[in-house]
């Protein structure tokens, strides 16, 4: 019985860390790829084709199913992370009360960061599946025109406005805590913290700028009737 308990604790801790690291890494790449809209519709179109494995398709268009499979895989990682992380949530009212009181009497940066992760994690649990399943259930919708339409006309822009800061803050606090958790004896704490802060600011800036450009694109240059973008 004790062995099972031991195994479970170790597994959960490692799966939580590993899945979190994968998701944080994905977020970093995702925001950079998505920001290709800053370079114009053509650049975003090329990125979308590359992600859909257009290089394997003689027509160059690619296979939207690649995104579906990848999205489902990501959803699985998300579930693993949520299941492993949920055990960290205080489960009793008394624990929440202690936490609130403790944060007042012994204020401490990392405890505050963790509480921020608790709240952001809870929010992400509801927001990320909407975004992820929205993409998975609409294969081929990663396109300069269709994405702009989704953001501006279908209101997904509001979802992304909420997702961007919450996801980035949750991820970067997580990366910092992860580094300290497993390599606290090897890594410089304050340098890692500063690095995570810089990356947080960068990603929020990048994502916000991209979102502004998406709105601009959606308002000024959507074809009527709506058709996928085709390069000149």
């Amino acid at each position, binding site marked *: 019985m*004790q*062995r099972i*308990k*031991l*195994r479970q*604790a*170790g*597994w*959960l*801790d*490692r799966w939580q860390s590993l899945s979190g690291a994968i998701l944080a890494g994905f977020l970093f790449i995702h925001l950079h790829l998505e920001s290709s809209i800053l370079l114009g519709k053509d650049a975003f179109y090329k990125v979308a084709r590359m992600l859909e494995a257009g290089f394997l398709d003689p027509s160059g268009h690619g296979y939207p199913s690649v995104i579906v499979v990848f999205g489902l895989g990501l959803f699985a990682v998300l579930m693993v992370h949520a299941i492993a992380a949920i*055990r*960290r949530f*205080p489960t009793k009212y008394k*624990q929440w009360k*202690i*936490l609130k*009181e*403790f*944060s007042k*009497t*012994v*204020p*401490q940066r*990392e*405890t505050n960061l*963790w509480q921020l992760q608790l709240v952001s994690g809870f929010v992400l649990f509801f927001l990320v599946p909407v975004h992820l399943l929205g993409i998975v259930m609409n294969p081929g919708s990663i396109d300069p025109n269709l994405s702009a339409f989704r953001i501006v006309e279908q209101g997904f822009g509001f979802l992304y406005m909420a997702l961007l800061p919450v996801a980035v803050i949750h991820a970067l606090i997580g990366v910092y*805590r992860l580094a*300290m*958790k*497993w*390599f*606290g*004896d*090897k890594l410089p*704490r304050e340098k890692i913290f500063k690095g995570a802060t810089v990356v947080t600011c960068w990603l929020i800036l990048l994502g916000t700028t991209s979102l502004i450009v998406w709105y601009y694109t959606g308002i000024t240059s959507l074809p009527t009737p709506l058709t996928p973008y085709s390069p000149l």
Partner: protein
Amino acid sequence: MSRQLTFKIFRYDPLQPEIKPYTQEYQLEEASGMTVFIALNLIREKQDPSLQFDFVCRAGICGSCAMVINGVPTLACRTLTKQYEDGIVTLLPLPGFGLIGDLSVDTGKFMRSISERLQAWLEPKDHEVDIHSLEIPMESEEAEAIYEADRCIECGCCVSSCATAQMRDTFVGAVGFNKVARFALDSRDSREVEDFYHIIGDEDGVFGCMTLLGCQDNCPKDLNHQGQIAYLRRKISMSDRII
């Protein structure tokens, strides 16, 4: 003319539950090199003999005078009042321990139970001790590593700085991890590393630690809890028993 210090001190006597906890203020003239411990003694001597707090060594060795000073669990005898620019010092008892009265808490009960639970004592390899035989010399690196872990004075500041320990009273905490590490390092101990890891390889042990690092930030002896816990976590994860 020295400045006036204001001490805001938590007051409560569990033996008088009809009097609710309250904060009492004391004014005191600051002296050169004054510590919070000295100030508390002056307050008790000249203003209020009913004030309860603990001390023994006055030199940061016994850990008795640990309390929350302006939001930081630390030792009163090593805290200079001059560092508080506004001259206001708020004192609370260490959270997470049984309150004896005012600033005095019972850390002993907690430390004893942790020691018993973790079996934090030396289990010699040879129980038959021949006092005439020469003692086996210890490598100086090993002795230093043990000494480093042994610097823990069990003041309880790490437990009082840890939100995990506050929320879950079964959590071992940094002081417990340090105890395990101390005996795991000792070549005279008969137990295998896995035996120690078996004690702390669950949710109440290293896998329950949420890396909130309060232990690291507030240890009055500057022990490297952050490094020690990360090392233990990695080791226990890599152990053959725990896949």
